[in-house]
């Protein structure tokens, strides 16, 4: 039955992550943007919230919580409210932990999940995106060729978060390029695998706190046990829906941040004798921002709830992500506009949010719910 209410548990998670995000993460955002570094202590603190370990199965040391895409979306939104670079960093281990938990073989779960169930942050990363202007998830160029019982991987990836500090990369590659989503597999590739090269940290307009790297795979030979899901393989389309919902949810948080800031500013800044918020030109911009945020969140929730019901939610998550990518840009741009010239200078965070928002459209698959 239609219901727009969170469960008590979800409300609690939202509150605690929200408090951490607005008190700790938000404060650290500018520094991360300027220096590219995130304090290890902040990440450690965030890890203590159990966002990744909580939903992992008990038998592998996890909290055994039911994994819910809606709960995941709530967490991502709150972290995104704090800062999406830092939020992506905090949740990056999920990119390996959750696909393994959801689609891995028993052996892979036993091998991989324990490390994410412990008390300390363990970096891990997924390599999905490729550095091409028309990169398409259904036409991944990185190849996986059978080599006896194992596989040989070749290709170039980019935007791989935390690649340099991760021991294992989950590399997505096409084993049958003619099959679209169905032809994509994922492989657990140790960082020291011969032929795997991690390049310099990437430089982008925004998301500057998040360390991402290019990754080259040159005749990387991996064994049969590397293929996620074993003979069954994975449901790549579903994993990408999970990723899109996560990114979209981060975007909603980002939008909310920009809105709150712009609204507060507009109620304090005077022009022509009144607060600028009293001018319809500004008030309507703010009203529009508020509507877009709610609409975006509902689209994310709807897609997430389909995932939770076991559907792949391919269309819903795709539409939701594209919607958020466009509206986050609009909302953050409006926030800059509300601040006038002050929005353009780096004293205020709105210009950073605009740069970060632009990233949402460019990236796919660097977060998951």
């Amino acid at each position, binding site marked *: *039955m*239609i*219901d*727009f*209410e*969170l*469960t008590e548990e*979800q409300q609690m998670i939202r509150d605690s992550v929200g408090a951490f995000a607005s008190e700790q993460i938000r404060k650290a955002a500018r520094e991360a943007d300027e220096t590219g570094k995130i304090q290890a202590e902040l990440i450690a603190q965030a890890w203590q919230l159990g966002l990744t370990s909580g939903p992992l199965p008990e038998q592998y040391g996890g909290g055994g919580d039911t994994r819910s895409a*809606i709960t995941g979306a709530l967490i991502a939104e709150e972290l995104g409210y704090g800062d999406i670079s830092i939020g992506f960093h905090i949740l990056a281990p999920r990119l390996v932990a959750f696909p393994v938990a959801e689609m891995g073989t028993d052996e892979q779960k036993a091998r991989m999940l324990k490390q994410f169930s412990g008390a300390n942050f363990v970096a891990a990363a997924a390599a999905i995106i490729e550095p091409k*202007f*028309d*990169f*398409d*998830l*259904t*036409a991944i160029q990185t190849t996986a060729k059978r080599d006896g019982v194992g596989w040989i991987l070749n290709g170039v990836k980019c935007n791989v978060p935390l690649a340099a500090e991760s021991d294992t990369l989950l590399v997505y590659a096409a084993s049958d390029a003619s099959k679209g*989503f169905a032809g994509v597999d994922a492989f657990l590739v140790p960082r020291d695998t011969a032929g795997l090269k991690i390049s310099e940290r990437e430089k982008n307009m925004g998301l500057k706190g998040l360390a991402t790297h290019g990754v080259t795979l040159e005749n990387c030979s991996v064994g049969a046990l590397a293929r996620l899901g074993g003979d069954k393989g994975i449901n790549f*389309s579903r994993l*990408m829906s999970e990723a899109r919902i996560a990114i979209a949810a981060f975007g909603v948080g980002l939008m909310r941040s920009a809105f709150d800031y712009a*609204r507060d500013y*507009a*109620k304090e800044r005077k022009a022509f004798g009144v*607060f600028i*918020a*009293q001018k*319809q030109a500004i*008030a*309507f911009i*703010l*009203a*529009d921002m*508020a*509507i877009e945020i*709610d*609409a*975006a969140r*509902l*689209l994310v*929730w*709807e897609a*997430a*709830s*389909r995932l939770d*019901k076991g559907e792949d939610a*391919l*269309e819903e998550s*795709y*539409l*939701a992500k*594209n*919607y958020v990518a466009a509206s986050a840009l609009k909302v953050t741009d409006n926030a800059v506009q509300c601040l006038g010239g002050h929005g353009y200078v780096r004293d205020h965070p709105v210009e950073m949010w605009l740069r970060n928002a632009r990233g949402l*459209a460019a990236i796919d698959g660097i977060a998951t719910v």
Partner: protein
Amino acid sequence: MIDFELEPQVLKRLQMYHMVAENMMRPISREYDEKEHEKPWQFYETMWQAQALADVGAPTKSDEKDSGPKLRNLYTVLSTEELCWGDAGLFLSTPNSGLGGAAVMAAGTPQQKARFLKRFSEGKPKWGAMAITEPHFGSDSAAVKTTAVRDGDNWVINGTKIFCTGGEMAAEKSEGFVVVWATVDATAGRAGIKPFVVDHNTPGMSVIRVEDKMGIRASDTAAIVFDNCKIPLDHILGSAEVKREGGFKDVMATFDATRPIVAAMAIGVGRAALDFVRDFLKEQKVEIRYGISQRRLTALERDFMEMEVQLKAARLLTWRAAWMLDTGKRNNLEASMAKAKAGLVVTQITQKAVELLGPLGYSRQYLLEKWMRDAKINDIFEGTQQINMIIVARRILGYGSKELN
């Protein structure tokens, strides 16, 4: 728990509405668009007898006990969407208590509700209407000039109302009523404005004009003059006392319930257009590819998906606003969000749909061009786009009408 699934019993009832929309409304859509001031009596009789619309058009039954679904306002929104998918003009013109009924529900005493609304469940088809708008104002509804003056056991009403939906049917062509907003104390501003029930064919009330419109032509939009129109004292809804608080505000609360319905009307029309385009593209073997890189999409695919997701966004906002009402939460902000978004995007969606089909979209051979004409009203009545934005803005800024107007 967050959930977007409709219950099977609701889906079943919606299927029934869909059949009405498809088999009874669509076939006569074009005819009553072209023959603007004629009435589809056969359709009205059937709808009236079936009482199919008993719970549609006005959330008038929300506090009555019945066996219907628990989320009554949500259900009304859903069925409204379905019927407006059929034809928004016919939907608006269908006999029921309409906005007048909504006002009675919002402002009337229990006795008044029973007395005035009883007629809508018996006898011949009847219409209810609400008249606020006057020639000199629309959005600024506190500017009511129509007066109600006490004269012994009567109120005497004088003034001119325009743009009254179903006004002709309610005032003269059925045994319905018109709820008229008039001021009992012009010096009191908003607080002096009160709603009055004027029964059909009351001497002194006359329809002087029925508008010719761009769309929703099956629905009559009437100008009504009140010339020393005498009505009984107890036809004032609520109290006659002029208080600084309440009063007008309570009546404005009518819109918290009706705005989601108008949003749903918009969404029904938008969905009609979207479904038409989808089927059309399928026939042309144009595939809509979800999940691939945005940079690989054709312009057509992008346009279509944009229409689809905007419609979805508006619908979710609308469902939320109705659901809040059902669960006893104040929804004034959310109702305006839904109305502002739905009115705007459906206007854009239907315009885009016409554009996408080129000359075929513009042609009267199809209903698409009609839906574009029908959609636009949703951005205007029950509070224009701008008025709803003001309401949203005031709420998010914590401003009153003095700070933001």
